[in-house]
């Protein structure tokens, strides 16, 4: 049943797949982000309490969602890699980690810049903020750990284990606003039956969430391609590809 997956254990196939997927991630992402951002910045109504500062939500929430989603993705790859001994999965973790770190940074940075006018402070040691900061450190830890080994199979196993252990942080981040009395506001859209946001504010947010997801996909594809090439530099197919001017990937 899962036979179609087997060729992708071969890095050459995965490289080609990433190359094919890349434009399908990139161009819809640019279109969605352009529409979502312009809609959110210029056309959505202002919030009745926060005025126009609430517009930061259109990058803050997608960044935060992706920071957690990408971490979950790394953990799934780590699990598959460890159980079935597929080194392409380890490369996938290495490819996703910097993208996830950037998303976490975006969530923290825009959160701080949003917090200053609304809460009167850039930072508080509140449960949501602190657990998100720990997520950033987990990402940086994965990046550093992968870089610390010369043997990339060992490195891959180490980061796979670290990704899996770090998953414990995800529910903590998600439920932090319920478990502790935090300064951070509660969920806005994950209450699907009754979202506490009006639909003309919600639509651009959904577009941007999807856009961020696709951008992350495009970046992960590109990073995985380069990671594969770095590992396989001595292989004939990679040599041919790198030596030719027409690479199919600028």
């Amino acid at each position, binding site marked *: 049943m899962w036979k179609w997956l087997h060729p992708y254990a071969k890095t050459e196939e995965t490289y080609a797949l990433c190359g094919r997927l890349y434009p399908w991630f990139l161009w819809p992402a640019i279109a969605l982000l352009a529409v979502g951002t312009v809609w959110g910045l210029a056309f959505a109504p202002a919030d009745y309490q926060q005025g126009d500062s609430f*517009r930061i939500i259109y990058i803050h929430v997608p960044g935060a969602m992706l920071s957690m989603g990408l971490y979950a993705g790394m953990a799934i790859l780590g699990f598959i890699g460890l159980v079935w001994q597929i080194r392409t999965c380890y490369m996938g973790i290495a490819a996703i980690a910097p993208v996830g770190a950037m998303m976490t940074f975006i969530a923290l940075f825009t959160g701080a810049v949003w917090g200053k006018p609304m809460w009167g402070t850039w930072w508080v040691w509140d449960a949501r903020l602190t657990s998100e900061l720990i997520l950033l450190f987990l990402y940086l830890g994965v990046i550093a750990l992968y870089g610390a080994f010369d043997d990339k199979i060992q490195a891959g196993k180490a980061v796979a284990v670290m990704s899996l252990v770090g998953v414990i942080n995800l529910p903590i981040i998600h439920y932090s606003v319920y478990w502790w009395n935090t300064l951070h506001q509660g969920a806005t859209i994950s209450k699907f039956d009754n979202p506490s946001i009006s639909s003309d504010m919600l639509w651009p947010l959904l577009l941007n969430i999807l856009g961020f997801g696709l951008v992350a996909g495009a*970046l992960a594809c590109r990073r995985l391609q380069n990671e594969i090439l770095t590992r396989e530099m001595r292989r004939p197919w990679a040599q041919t590809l*790198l030596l030719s001017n027409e690479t199919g990937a600028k």
Partner: protein
Amino acid sequence: MHFDSFAAFIDMGGYGFYVWTSFIVTFVGIYTLFIEQKWRKKQLKLAVVKENDRIQRIKKAKEKASQANSDE
């Protein structure tokens, strides 16, 4: 359009600095990741070209040496 004028759009009801800083940092950050990968690919290409040239040079030098030996 929610805003009356372009100036009002930039001002963001007094929150202009915060809103625009967030958006600029976010998109510059994402763009940097794309540029970084473009650069990395270029570096990889250079490394392989350099390595390939070196192999060719060694090959030529060896051929030359064996030629010289057979001439003697």
